[in-house]
């Protein structure tokens, strides 16, 4: 069941459950930050509408910089602002930022310890019809391998807004990952959000596995848990909204409790959430794992739900992974 203490959206499994894109939460968070903190500045590379920075731009034109189609310049300009007392948010598609401009981010933002927040939009195959060129599926790996950066992936629009607000209070580089498609609203305003904490959203009395999900796919993980419950299989579902720093303590507890882990992410299975969890557990508590995500392949054009089915990343695939794990355990 959904953990009642976390005040989650109880209507999440209804057919008419509310859906919003996580990028919308980013836009709302920025607008609020604009009001709250005069040092917040926003930069975009010809994508102000689709990265939802328009609201900020309208209200605070002096603190909004349109950089044109030039992501490397955008990153390094932000680096300069960030070492001079400003809190810049750079907004583009994740394939371009931190994709195309990765080395600029590495040198001028992260190694330079500049206080820049990198917002990567249109992540994952959920980007849909635009095709693989615009579906960022390696960006978690690109960012989490950088020393001293924080990597946050909100599961819905409400958490996205909270993550955006929190990131302005962090002194240092942060990567925020957003999704284009409208996805179910899982949390509520009352749900606590704490950076660097894994939260167990779905609890059960006798869990045999834990599904660790990041981003909007958390919804599919929850759906899986509900369906498995009906089949008599108890699992836990946890929201890993912070990939870096990874909440090792909670991870250990969950591994201890269940002895089987499925990771779920709209990203290559190499280098993302699954990789991070495996790196940690291999050293601290080797645990059987299954990995849901892109299996060393690019996506393609299509509606997100069809793509998730094709690349075996939906609730059916997650359920199959859980069962495979349980078979391995016994």
């Amino acid at each position, binding site marked *: 069941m959904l953990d009642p203490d976390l005040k989650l959206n109880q209507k999440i499994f209804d057919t008419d459950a509310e859906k919003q894109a996580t990028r919308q939460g980013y836009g709302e968070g920025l607008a609020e930050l604009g009001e709250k903190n005069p040092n917040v500045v926003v930069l975009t590379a010809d994508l102000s509408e689709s990265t939802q920075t328009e609201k900020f731009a309208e209200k605070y034109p002096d603190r909004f910089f349109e950089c044109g189609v*030039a992501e490397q310049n955008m990153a390094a300009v932000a680096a300069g602002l960030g070492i001079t007392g400003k809190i810049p948010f750079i907004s583009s598609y994740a394939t371009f930022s931190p994709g195309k401009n990765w080395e600029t981010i590495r*040198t001028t933002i992260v190694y330079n310890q500049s206080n820049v927040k990198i917002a990567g939009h249109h992540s994952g195959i959920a980007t849909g019809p635009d095709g693989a060129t615009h579906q960022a599926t390696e960006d978690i790996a690109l960012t989490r391998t950088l020393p001293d950066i924080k990597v946050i992936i909100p599961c819905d629009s409400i958490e996205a807004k909270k993550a955006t607000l929190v990131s302005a209070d962090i002194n240092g580089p942060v990567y925020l990952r957003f999704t284009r498609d409208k996805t179910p609203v899982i949390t509520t305003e009352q749900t606590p959000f704490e950076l660097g904490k894994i939260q167990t959203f779905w609890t059960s009395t006798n869990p045999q596995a834990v599904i660790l999900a990041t981003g909007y796919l958390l919804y599919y993980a929850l759906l899986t848990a509900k369906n498995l419950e009906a089949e008599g299989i108890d699992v836990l579902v946890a929201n890993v909204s912070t990939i870096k720093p990874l909440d090792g303590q909670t991870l250990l507890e969950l591994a201890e409790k269940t002895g089987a882990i499925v990771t779920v992410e709209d990203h290559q299975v190499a280098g993302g959430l699954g990789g991070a969890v495996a790196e940690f557990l291999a050293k601290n508590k080797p645990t059987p794992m299954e990995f849901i995500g892109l299996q060393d392949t690019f996506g393609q054009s299509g509606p997100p739900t069809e793509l998730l089915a094709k690349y075996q990343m939906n609730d059916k695939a997650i359920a199959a992974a859980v069962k495979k794990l349980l078979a391995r355990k016994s």
Partner: protein
Amino acid sequence: MFEDLYEEKLISLEEKANKARQLLIETLLTAGSGHSAGPLGMADIFIAFYFHILNHRPENPGWEDRDRLILSNGHICPIRYVSMAMSGYFPLEELKTLRKINSRLQGHPHRTSLPGVETTSGPLGEGISQAIGIALAAKLDKKTYQTYCITSDGEHQEGNTWEAVMFAGKLKMNNLTLIIDRNNIQIDGFTENVMPLEPLKEKYEAFNWAVLEVDGNNIKVFVDAIKEALAIYEKPTVIIAHTIPGKGVDFMEKDFHWHGKPPNQQEAKKALNELRTLQGRIQSEHQ
């Protein structure tokens, strides 16, 4: 604004530039790796900045109203380190740690390792953008400090250089002054053979910049050019400073093979002899 450059001050700057070249040779010899030609060629400009142009406080490198000097082509940092040490940012002795383990003097400059190094640089084409960001922050905060950025000519082959040039032109960044070390060499040879940059002046003009061209090894001329640049309000200004790579050491001058290597013991001795002889000439030239 800095004062006019009277004769005695000019002589003292030229002597300092010569001293800087000697320290540079000694530093590179101890380091055992690093770049020779670019730093020697830029000694006059760095000394002009640290001892005349910049409004700065070596004892308080983080002073928020200081002028910013951004070095985009980080590989010539030895001359920046030498100039910083000479002006009191850290003891001259520390120059011996360049490129050694646990040193604040990284092979390519790292902002948080050494106070006074304004940005982290090395990978080319990233300095102008960072300088723009710093200059934008100045405008937002209504600060009057000037942001200077030194770039190499070779790094104008990087596409991101032109992203930045375009952006500064768009924003009419008049609190930003760019200096190009036009020494015509890069690792693989002469710039015009590797990837021609000319007509460089016209390129900048086409991007809505004001362009000045000067002899970068003439301190008087360079300081005057900075003064002229600061008087241009309607657009950003670039000073194309023609320098001689390896300046001051005959066997290094204009030879691109000296771009990325340090002198060995014998070469250093020869270079130092030359530079010490030059020291005497500075005084007599002004008489």
